[in-house]
């Protein structure tokens, strides 16, 4: 096991070998389940209106990783998604563009060609997404292929089976190897919190991913229910904040799956501001993995600017 960056001594100690890693992860303070759920619910009731709401909507739009991960994806669909990423609301040029387009590795080239020079990132899921059940060689080849095709961000899945059976070293090494294979591309580590069962596990997996060098920790693939939830995102935001306190580095969080409405998105932004801090309120450190959310954000934005409610007939169907 090798630490990917120079870490403070306490953390460098944690990644020395598998048993010290286990000791470190199990030595993390337990999550107060009732407390975190109550805090998430409490912050969710905060009312955001008028100008603040408008700003929240624009911020949320700029944080969207516009995603299509279907077996039925075609180059045409990816191209139209890229067009939407560049100009989410064609009648209103002041709408910000989204952060990234997220596709399967074989669609990366199509997306990269469409998004060249726009500043929009191309994210690709890799490593035998969504289950992660394959050999390390295949996962690495998958990652290298995505990067060669032009992906600037890679969303990997961790081996949940290994994590749940306590083989943390295996999970750690996999992340380190995938990070190497990524080269300059940013690595987002999908924890699939819906399969991790407890908040304690989410906290451990978050720290594991951060120790191994993940630039982002992401809640879920979107293929497993429950996907992203507010309390889980709270726990992960605490992890990146604590990481920042200990190392001075800023790492990101990406909730994905199940966030469909503007109201939900704003609740997440409030959580980011309150749990992690205002410096996380940008698309370098916080993203939404979503497809239908963007339409709702655009409709709510129109409601704010037009003074009447909008409808799905006025946004593109994707």
């Amino acid at each position: 096991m090798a630490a990917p960056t120079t870490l403070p001594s306490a953390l460098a100690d944690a990644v020395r070998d598998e048993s010290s890693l286990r000791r470190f992860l199990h030595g993390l303070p337990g999550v107060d389940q009732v407390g975190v759920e109550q805090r998430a619910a409490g912050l969710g009731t905060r009312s955001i209106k008028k100008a603040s709401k408008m700003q929240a909507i624009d911020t949320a739009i700029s944080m969207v990783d516009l995603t299509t991960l279907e077996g039925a994806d075609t180059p045409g669909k990816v191209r139209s998604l890229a067009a939407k990423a560049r100009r989410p609301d064609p009648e209103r040029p002041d709408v910000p563009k989204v952060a990234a387009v997220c596709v399967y590795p074989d669609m990366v080239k199509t997306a990269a060609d469409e998004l060249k020079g726009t500043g929009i990132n191309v994210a690709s899921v890799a490593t035998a997404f969504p289950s992660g059940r394959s050999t390390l060689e295949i996962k690495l080849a998958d990652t290298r292929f995505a990067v060669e095709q032009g992906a600037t961000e890679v969303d990997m899945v961790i081996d949940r089976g290994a994590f749940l059976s306590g083989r943390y070293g295996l999970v750690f090494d996999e992340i380190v190897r995938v990070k190497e294979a990524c080269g300059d591309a940013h690595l987002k580590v999908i924890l699939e919190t819906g399969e991790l069962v407890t908040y304690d596990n989410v906290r451990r997996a978050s720290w594991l991913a951060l120790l191994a060098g993940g630039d982002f920790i992401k809640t879920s693939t979107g293929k497993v229910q429950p996907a992203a939830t507010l309390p889980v995102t709270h726990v992960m935001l605490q992890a990146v904040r604590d990481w920042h306190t200990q190392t001075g580095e800023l790492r990101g969080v990406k909730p994905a799956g199940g966030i469909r409405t503007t109201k939900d998105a704003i609740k997440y932004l409030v959580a980011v501001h309150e749990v992690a801090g205002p410096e996380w309120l940008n698309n370098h450190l916080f993203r939404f993995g979503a497809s239908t959310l963007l339409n709702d954000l655009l409709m709510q934005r129109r409601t704010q600017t037009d003074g009447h409610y909008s409808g799905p007939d006025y946004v593109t169907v994707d």
Partner: protein
Amino acid sequence: MSDRISVAKTYKLYIGGAFPRSESGRSYPVTDHKGAFLANAAQGSRKDARDAVGAARKAFPGWSGATAYNRGQVLYRVAEMLEGRREQFIAEVSAAEGVPAKKAQSLVDAAIDRWVWYAGWTDKIASVLGAANPVAGPYFSFSTPEPTGVVAVLAPQQSSLLGLVSVVAPVIASGNTAVVVTSQDRPLPAITLSEVLATSDLPGGVVNLLTGRTAEIAPWLASHADVNALDLTGAPESIRADLERSAAGTVKRVLRARPSEDFTREPDLSRIRAYLETKTVWHPMGV
């Protein structure tokens, strides 16, 4: 022994097949024609209207996609349920409109008959209003009536049950879904109707009933981009022009029905026809 204190009800809205409180938390007292207290009704807000439109939009594919025969069966079932609540309706109509029991009875019977009349139309609309068009070639051309979508209905202010049924039934008979703003001062028969609809086979969201101030809710429905048609029957005279103007902003169909309409008169097809689009399809001859 002291007199029993009656249990005064506080009713809620009917949105998406459920009975939520108004988002605003408001309610208002409903009185009979002499001013005596009857019950509290929820005072719907613009956000309730928005939720109701969302529920109606969600219900539209299922309801418009159901076979006309099935829609007819569901509406007949509603009529059966109306019949079961006949006594309650008579008492409520009598209290709200200040008519003697005998007159109230005939109004309620007319309302139930009106519902049955529209239920019978569901599977006949296509053959009466559609057509097989004559063409000079080896083709077929058909025109079929299709439901418009979500219809916002401002129910008549005076006729609390017969009027309500006469404006709601034609909307849903052809497969539209409805967001109804009930009579402001006489909402109780409408609330009872919502209880009937909730316990019949009508899918949730096909009819949504909002009680409250018509002048407060109507402008939001008229301007809402996801509403396809607007019935002005119960609109206050002072805001009619404004409602039409904002409805034009998203090219809604507007039914300019007068508030003075006499609902005891025999109905015709005009209210069904008001919320239909005609779809014409050319069919090349089969292989």
